[in-house]
């Protein structure tokens, strides 16, 4: 079983927030993660990562030194720092079957979170419902997120071009009323 990279600390049906197991070791923007669960592992996409002090009264300040120097001279300040990442739910596994829609229950607090395998990437992205889930989520930088996901996912498909066209068509359908936005996203998919 692959090791977990985070733990759920806040949860609702459409999103959850995790604390990364190690400082600065959150999964990439636009990558798929899943909440470990025997019956129903919830799948989501990482859309935001934050690193802040865990003690609200002790905020980081600028020292004018490199990270290496700081780690040597003041290791305690790194003890206070935490990395969090936000995940948008796009589907879940039930009986090893991927469903591209919201799970009946949100993930439980303190569940462990792990990165999705290559096989899962292929399986999840085969179902292009994730596009509409992201576009309608209202979370920050949806356009960047969609583009990043398409870029990531197309690597897992034998015919990447064909995959991009397929997802692109879905995107065009969803953004029928906003052609400029469609193009803004598509430009970020393939340079």
């Amino acid at each position, binding site marked *: 079983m692959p090791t977990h990279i985070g733990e759920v600390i806040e949860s609702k049906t459409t999103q959850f927030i995790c604390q990364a197991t190690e400082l600065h070791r959150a999964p990439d923007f636009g990558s798929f993660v899943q909440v470990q669960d025997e019956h129903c592992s919830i799948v989501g996409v990482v859309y935001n990562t934050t690193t802040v002090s865990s003690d609200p009264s002790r905020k980081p300040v600028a020292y004018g030194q490199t990270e290496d120097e700081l780690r040597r001279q003041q290791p305690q300040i790194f003890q206070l720092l935490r990395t969090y990442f936000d995940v948008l739910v796009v589907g879940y596994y039930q009986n090893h079957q991927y469903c591209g829609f919201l799970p009946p229950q949100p993930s439980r607090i303190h569940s462990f979170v792990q990165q999705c395998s290559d096989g899962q990437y292929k399986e999840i992205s085969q179902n292009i419902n994730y596009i509409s889930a992201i576009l309608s989520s209202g979370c920050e930088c949806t356009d960047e997120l969609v583009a990043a996901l398409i870029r990531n996912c197309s690597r897992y498909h034998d015919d990447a*071009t064909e995959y*991009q*066209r397929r997802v*692109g*068509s879905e*995107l*065009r359908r969803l953004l*029928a009323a906003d*052609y*400029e936005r*469609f*193009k803004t996203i*598509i*430009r970020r*998919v*393939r*340079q």
Partner: protein
Amino acid sequence: MKGRIVRGSISTGVEVKLDPQYTVEDVKVGNFAVIEGRKYRYFSLVSDVKIESTNPAMLVDSFEDEDELAREIIVGDSIFGNISLNPMLMADKEQVGETRAVRTIPPHSSPVRTATDEDVAHVFGSPDNKVFFSMGTPLEMDSPVCVNLPKLVERCSGIFGKAGTGKTFLTRLALAGITKSQAAVNLIFDAHNEYGWEATKEEDRGDGVLQESHVKGLKQLFPSRVVIFTLDPESSRRRGAKFDHEINLAHSQITPEDVLLLQSQLNLNSTATETMHLLSGKMGAEHWFGLLAEMAAEEMKDYAEEHGLHLGALQALQRKLKRVYDLPFMKDKIPFDAVDKIMQYLNAGKHVVIEFGSTQLLGYMMVTNILTKRIHAEYVRRMEKYQATRENKPPHLVISIEEAHRFLSPELARDTIFATIAREMRKFNVTLLLVDQRTSGIDSEVMSQIGTKIACKLDDESDVNALLTGVHDAKNLRNILYSLDSKQQALILGHAVPMPVVIKTRNYDAQFYNEIVETNYQENDKAFNEMVNDMYNDDEEI
């Protein structure tokens, strides 16, 4: 071409979204397309090709290099070829049977495809040189498009198009078809010596230099069935063209009406018209022309005084009629009446070509008019007799005239024999084949009587309008007409074809000669074999 129906109505036709792998360039106006409905198969012509999109913003996008993916996604699917079709015929999909006029349209998203050879044969029949005669092929296809010859001759038909578009060649084809099939007997007024014996054909060798070659006339293709009369034996001899008889007209055959047809050529005013009628009344219809033409100055003065006529008017008339009098084939006396002889041939099922040699328009018009009038009168007489006795029905006659608008202009049309024939339709078993480059010069009433129209390219809007007056679906056909190539392409519509169709005209060449003559040999062989068999059988019986 492949696509799917996206919308449509009976009145405006249906629209097709092209499948993404095809572009508008794969479809051309006039192409023959088939729609597979659920119950019926629909046959239609492409009447318009458009670029459409689901979003107007896409249309103005120029798709820069960095938008390659966007272009791949959008073009073909969101920006797509939209084809307008007007379904004209439908047929049951289950039974391969009769096609009929459309009374409904195919359901949404029915697949559309280019017609196949079977489709063309289904709609237009397979050539048999009896009923179905191949006139060409649909654009970009090789299967023959046939006209129904009995239907073609049943009503008047017309071959139109501006100069050099292939009217004469189409007419040759049609005449050869009629002759071959015996659907009718032909009487051809061959103004430019193109149908009887050999004619020249100009062809671009490919480097802009015109090269002359010869094409065969009807007489060469059907030597035993075609008779050539000429008005200008000198010209025939010069051209090395064979002819069977010479035609002359006698002064006694000219009536004031015949001269009136030449009103504009002779510049006759109303006084001249009146004077002619007066003279013919006083001198007799058979004598007035000869007498007036040969009247000396003194004589004329006396005659005018005696009969209270205006001398100046008489003199002017004489002067003007001199051009008619001077026509080389005008004779005081003639050895035989051409009409009798022509009628004999026609009755025997022979086809008659009347060549004019170097005769000018004036002579052409006069002879054509006079002969047609008399032959028509003869037909009326014989048909009436036939109706009484039910015996000796004269064969169906098709009279072909070039420069048809000269005889059927709106000013003249009501009175000329040709308008009469056009109006009568097939009552007396005579119909016309008009060949002309100016449809707008033909009386609209006559145009509306034309059953089958074969149209090559027409540029002039008034000509296109004239051609399409009274035609159903004129709007769509107009696009097709304008899109025709300027050579060897034609739109056929009307009585002789189940639906309008654009063809690349069949080549009139050695291959055609063989095809049309060859079957003849076969027929002969068959007849010969039958004869031999009969003899053999007879022997056995003894």
